[in-house]
């Protein structure tokens, strides 16, 4: 009896196998880094299901990568594995393009789509005239604060970076620090934006020379140091600035943070909440960070065509079900397309988010290359050198001018190397 059941089961299995063979499903694996906001993972899995419904011969495998995802991704790309088919990064790198690790998506962008994208997003995915990524969204940052504390202390929103330092000092009490900008005292997004405020660029337009070794950068970094050593910064807090905890728990009066945390800030602080953008340094330009992610196709994938179809469906064609949902239903992101931003009522109708988005689209510096660069040639060796500079300035008694010069030499050596 059991024997018969076994044989029957085997036959069913065989039939299923043959049927599956006949259907010839292609599986495309799509890698995401672990987004912190609740519901995001379920959302990207749902997008996969939506696509499978419309394309029954394709199955979308979502790979969610917590922790050190860059290492896994980069190793997989360099070893020319076919996996992942689709992945995300802030911007494609020059090295990837040169070594064929990323496929060109040039043919997927119509004139209308190009005109609809925020111009800086398109620039960040274009290398030597070709497009290598589909901008998914823009990530902005801002300072969050409590107007009630400002009112009680008699201070108003700072217009310059020096004013920010002054206010931060004024707001510091024995129980509460003035400002939280993360535990490295600015060696990150904020520090780069302050430096950009003092200089036109880091690398010249032709990609040959380092351009940040100038008095403007030095002066800007000096201002950052004044803030870092003012004694008014909250340091050593166990939760990073990318989560709302420090301000919400009343450990500081102002906190630097991401637009993506806006819904959480709002939920916790209610109406006692204000935002302002990074104030420019004396004589500098206003800057705002514009991060975000782009969807890219592995140049060594066995199924580039299928992968490109997915990217086109998810992030290039008009697809509010994915693009608008992702930008507004979990953490807040700015859709990469202007038309969709106009439909994003959650962002557009709130004066605070509108302020952040408008500033970001007006003068945001789109993350290009690795880290916080403004050129695709900016790689992570250069980014590490500059981060070290910012970190040293905040903690050690060093000459800023000398350090900027040394770092510029270091970055120039690397740039020459990369250009070769």
């Amino acid at each position: 009896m059991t024997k018969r059941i076994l044989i029957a089961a085997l036959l069913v299995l065989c039939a299923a196998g043959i049927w599956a063979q006949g259907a010839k499903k292609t599986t495309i694996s799509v890698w995401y880094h672990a987004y912190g906001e609740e519901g995001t993972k379920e959302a990207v899995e749902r997008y996969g299901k939506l696509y499978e419904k419309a394309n029954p011969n394709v199955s979308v495998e979502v790979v969610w990568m917590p922790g050190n995802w860059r290492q896994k991704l980069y190793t997989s790309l360099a070893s020319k594995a076919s996996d992942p088919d689709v992945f995300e990064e802030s911007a494609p790198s020059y090295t990837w393009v040169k070594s064929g690790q990323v496929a060109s998506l040039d043919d997927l962008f119509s004139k209308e789509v190009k005109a609809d994208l925020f111009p800086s997003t398109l620039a960040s995915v274009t290398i030597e005239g070709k497009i290598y990524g589909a901008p998914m969204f823009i990530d902005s940052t801002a300072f969050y604060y409590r107007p009630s504390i400002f009112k009680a202390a008699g201070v108003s929103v700072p217009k310059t970076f020096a004013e920010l330092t002054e206010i931060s000092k004024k707001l510091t009490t024995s129980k509460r620090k003035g400002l939280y900008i993360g535990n490295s005292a600015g060696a990150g997004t904020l520090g780069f934006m302050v430096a950009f405020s003092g200089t036109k660029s880091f690398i010249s337009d032709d990609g040959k020379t380092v351009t940040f070794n100038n008095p403007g950068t030095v002066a800007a970094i000096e201002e950052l140091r004044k803030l870092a050593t003012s004694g008014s910064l909250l340091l050593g807090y166990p939760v990073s600035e990318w989560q709302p905890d420090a301000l919400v728990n009343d450990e500081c009066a102002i906190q630097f943070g991401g637009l993506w945390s806006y819904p959480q800030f709002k939920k916790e602080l209610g109406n006692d909440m204000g935002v302002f953008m990074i104030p420019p340094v004396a004589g500098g330009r206003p800057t705002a960070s514009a991060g975000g992610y782009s969807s890219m196709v592995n140049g060594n994938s066995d199924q580039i065509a299928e992968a490109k179809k997915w990217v086109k469906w998810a992030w290039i064609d008009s697809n509010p079900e994915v693009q608008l949902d992702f930008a507004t239903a979990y953490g807040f992101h700015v859709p990469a397309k202007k038309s969709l931003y106009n439909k994003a009522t959650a962002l557009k109708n709130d004066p605070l988010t509108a302020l952040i988005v408008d500033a970001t689209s007006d003068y945001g510096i789109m993350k290009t290359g690795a880290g916080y660069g403004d050129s695709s040639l900016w790689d992570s060796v250069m980014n590490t050198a500059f981060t070290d500079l910012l970190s040293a300035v905040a903690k050690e008694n060093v000459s800023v001018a000398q350090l900027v010069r040394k770092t510029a030499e270091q970055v120039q050596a690397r740039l020459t190397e990369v250009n070769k």
Partner: protein
Amino acid sequence: MGSKSLKKHREYSPSTRSLKKANERSDARFFWFFTAPMLAGLLIFVVIPIGWGLVLSFFNARGTIDLKEFVGIHNYILLFREPGFVKSIITILVFGVFMVPATVIFALLLAVMIHNTVKLKGFFRTVFFLPTAFSYVVASMIWRMSIFSGMRFGLVNTFLSFFDIAPVLWTSSSPAVWLPITTVRLWLQVGFFMILYIAGIEEIPEELFEAARVDGVDRGWVLLRHITIPMVKNTTIFIVFQSIINLFRSFDEFYNILVDSVSSSNLHLARTPLIYLYQTGFIAQDYGRGSAGAMIVVLLIVLGTQLQKKFFGDGKAVRS
């Protein structure tokens, strides 16, 4: 012992000579049968990667692990011009000058203390050994976020506040950062080395101590200095050897104490060679330069252990 006498017995009986040969053949077969998987693993996962790394270090391998453009020792020259890499080597050497002796001293002291404990010996041994089974990453996070948190409510800072000392930024300022780094490492490593020392101490013949007592020596320090320490020399040699290797392999506790969010990093305060190479090799995808750095680290390990061998011997001659 058993096999030796068996052999002797066989040699006396000529009729078993062919049997002996067959036995040897099957011995050899068994040798290869049992060691081949290990040797194959060693070859595939250790020997070939080291060889490949050596070859790759002479090539320009940015964004690829293919051998495309031979550049000679260019990668090595670049590394030595890189202030970050040179600084990381100096950092780890200075750290080692403190760390290796500290590991040996703490492990030996704990072992001697536990050996001389009358009650609850097993309990103390287990308690001190337990951290060995702990994850470096988790331990570092506990050190960073609770014990050595820079906030006033961090454990150490709370303690300091009783003496009216202002909160110290343990994980984001130098030289304060060295306290969490060294303590977490000692906590994680010392237990294992302590077990080795306990085993070594228990091997020391009791007569030696008795003889010393007969000669009128009853101070613990003298016994430790003249009997225990010389008698566990082989264990010490092994521990120093292992500590030197661990030193150059430092990554986890440094990385997890210094990096606390995606973009904010204090790595420049205490970057180890492996963290530098991780950033160059895996993140910047410069595999040529990464491999060159790995070769330099391998060389330093070999050099360190050779120096140790020269000064302390390799532990072979002591017990014979």
